[in-house]
């Protein structure tokens, strides 16, 4: 049994402790906004926010490691798309197929927590391991700047 907080709600998970958070979110809790892209930590599609401070790849993070932690998934970023990143993403038309975008937004959330006014270089370095197969990078960069009020 693992107890953790997900999007502000306490949850108790009765799953094998080595189950990656990704599958607990998607298959046990029905939170399918967090995506499976590679399962081995090289694409970023599964990114969530831990303790409102750091980005974690949920495919490489076990449920047991998250005991007592607070997780924010894309579903918990806001209830009404009012987070500045969500607003910028919609306005600038970032998504193409959209599949990678939950991971992109969650990692960008962590970036803005750490660096509220990122430069292009900050964005490049922080976001470089999040793959977008559709190639939306140019708009992601612009949307992060817009959300940061730049």
């Amino acid at each position, binding site marked *: 049994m693992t107890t953790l907080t997900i999007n502000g709600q306490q949850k108790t998970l009765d799953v094998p402790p080595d189950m990656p958070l990704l599958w607990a979110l998607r298959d046990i809790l029905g939170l399918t*906004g967090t995506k499976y892209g590679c399962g081995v930590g090289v694409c970023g599609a599964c990114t969530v926010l831990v303790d409102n401070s750091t980005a974690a790849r949920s495919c490489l993070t076990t449920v047991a490691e998250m005991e007592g932690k607070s997780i924010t998934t894309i579903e918990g970023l806001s209830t009404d798309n009012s987070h500045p990143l969500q607003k910028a993403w919609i306005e600038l038309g970032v998504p193409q197929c959209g599949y990678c975008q939950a991971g992109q937004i969650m990692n960008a959330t962590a970036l803005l927590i750490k660096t509220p006014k990122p430069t292009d270089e900050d964005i490049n370095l922080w976001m*470089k391991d999040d793959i977008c197969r559709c190639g939306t990078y140019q708009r992601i960069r612009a949307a992060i700047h817009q959300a940061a009020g730049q």
Partner: protein
Amino acid sequence: MESISEDHDSSRRSFLLGMAATGALAFSTFSNATGELMIPEPSVSFEPNTWVKIDPDGTTTITVAKSEMGQGVRTSLAMIIAEEMDADWSKVKVRQARPDTGNGGLFTGGSGSVIWSYDMLRKAGATVKAMLISAAAKKWNVAESNCMASSGVISEKNGSRKILYGELTDDAAKISVPSNPSLKSTGDFKLIGTPKPHIDNPDVVSGKAKYGLDVRIPGMKFAVMVRMPAYGASISSFDATETLKLPGILKAENVQGVGLVVLADNTYAALKGREALKIEWNMGSNATLNSAKISEQMKSGIGTVADVPASSAKKIEAHYELPYLAHATMEVMNCVADIRQSSAEIWCPTQVGDDIRNAVANVTGLSANSITVNTTLLGGGFGRRLNTDYASIAARISKAFKVPVLFMFSRQDDMRGDAYRPASYHICKGGLDSTGKVTGWVHKTVNGEASNPPYQIQSPNSNSTSVGLPIPTGAWRSVGHTSSIFVNECFIDELAVAAGKDPFEFRHNLLPNGKLKTVLEKVAELAEWTKPLPKGWGRGIACTDAYSAIAHVVEVSVSNAGILKVERIVAVVDCGIAINPMGVEAQIQGASVDALSTALKSEITIENGGVKQSTFRDFEWLRMNEMPKVEVHIIPSTASPNGMGEAGFPSVSPALCNAIFNATGIRVRTLPIQKTSLAAVDDPEINNNIGEINVFPSPFTSFFKVEGQLNTASSGEVLISIQNLLGSTLLETSAPFTNNGKFSQEINFSPASAGVYFLTVKSGSALIMRKIVKE
């Protein structure tokens, strides 16, 4: 789906438009982007893929029959209808059609959705508007000519009365359907031609959007299959004892027509259960096949290649080779199947809803009309989802185990179980007379495509042959043009250089007047083609009219060490009227990423009879820090629209290779480019005063050892890193100094793909960089 919201409320009278080609009543169900089923009231069918429903509250629901895979079709097709009916765009919703409503026409490919639908959807929208105007005219007892529509409102021209579309649903339903409603002139368009973010974006950024993998139905289990390690391999025996002991495992057994399948309560259990299987393989007859042999077979299989006229003053010959490419859609192949006794329901991210229904009918023995297929959002398509393999497998598993299943490929399954863009080999020959005029053009390919270039060249000779290989191939964004246009646009550049002409001028002189010539001129102007560049920089140009007339200029810089930076890409397109310019721009930017990724770094190779790559680590994709600025210019037009899903791809890679030549004098004729060293000097940053390093073996396959000595530093540690062709750091490690600045470290670089990389050794201000080659 988890919730089925029935959009069916008899107190809410909806004005359902069905507009009558057949006059038949039809019940249609749909799903929206979040996957909820919507069951509208009975409608009279009008066009196979067009419905408009206006609710009393003004909500206008437009049905789209084409699959959304990122190309923005749910937005652009809805815009066409909304334009002609003067709908209030803020009230428009989109729902997805299904094949089992008998309407067909769900095929989404060949960049054809907008082209095929444009006239039909305009008419559908215009019909709605005409009926609303008739209804308002009747209600007010005025002439129709005295009523006008705008943004969801009908107003009286010589009066002050206004009425919302939603308030007219009852009356409009009583109006007979006009057969020839008048269409707007393009000059009156208010919505078409304005930039609109995709209509599904709010669902995407909130995590509500439902892709195939997100479908959850009651009682659903999770299934994965065991894939063969080589083409033609088979299982000689297996032992599932350990698998069956694991929590969450339901079955591990053979399913007819599929092979060994693991069924579990969740994805993790299924994947872990698969790992725990003990399998003895019979590797089959392809077990020694590899990429080098495939390359040899293609080269020897090309046969005779015609010659250019003997009288040509100058003859040029060049050979090109392209690798297999995976589609690597961000969402892996998957399908949910619920096969019951006499009916079935399928949820599938697919480009071919109709084919999926037939495929499921085939493998289950059910009749097609007892099978419902719901098309979900697609996490990328690029042609991969024109196949139906994943749905057939899901259906067979659901039928065998008598449960609803979500069947998925893991990323590795997906990369190794694809239908690839074919590897190909090409020989080109060209002739020039003494004035630099082209006297002959020959392009022959094995397993690729060779089409005639758009240039006015006498008797171009393009032909293709093939050698049989066990690697499955399929349509990949822009299909045969991926090889044909790459080769043609590189070779015309080679001819231009051989003729001593400017590559832009040379093309320009050979093009007839028309769209292609116009976009070529415009791209040269916007990219400042003639403006001098610093040393080590270069520009390349390429153009094609394969889908829409498009031309690209790519600007690069290459350092002495051979590190490449794509500085800028300028694209000019004439795609007819751009329904949604924001979507056109996105497609061109996205296709640039596709083209740069595949031109620079990614390839699928064959080893021991199977695909070697397994994930985005060894099938490398372009990353944020490698993304150049892509400037897109759309030529204003009122002509019928062309598709934009594929147009942005073919001319980028040749423009890139031509730019590299312009910068370095190196002609890259084998992709990916990272297999070719672009270095002006071999070991750029070796300075004997700083120290020396040795790398062995060289080249290496997986592991290598780096040893050396730094003269300036002797304590602490040395930082070792590996950069790719674009200068991105892929690996970082450190090694302690032993004595006198000596160090030694073994490095595992096995996951990366083959190519030229850079090893950097650094301590304090001392830095040594050296080129290394991975095979």
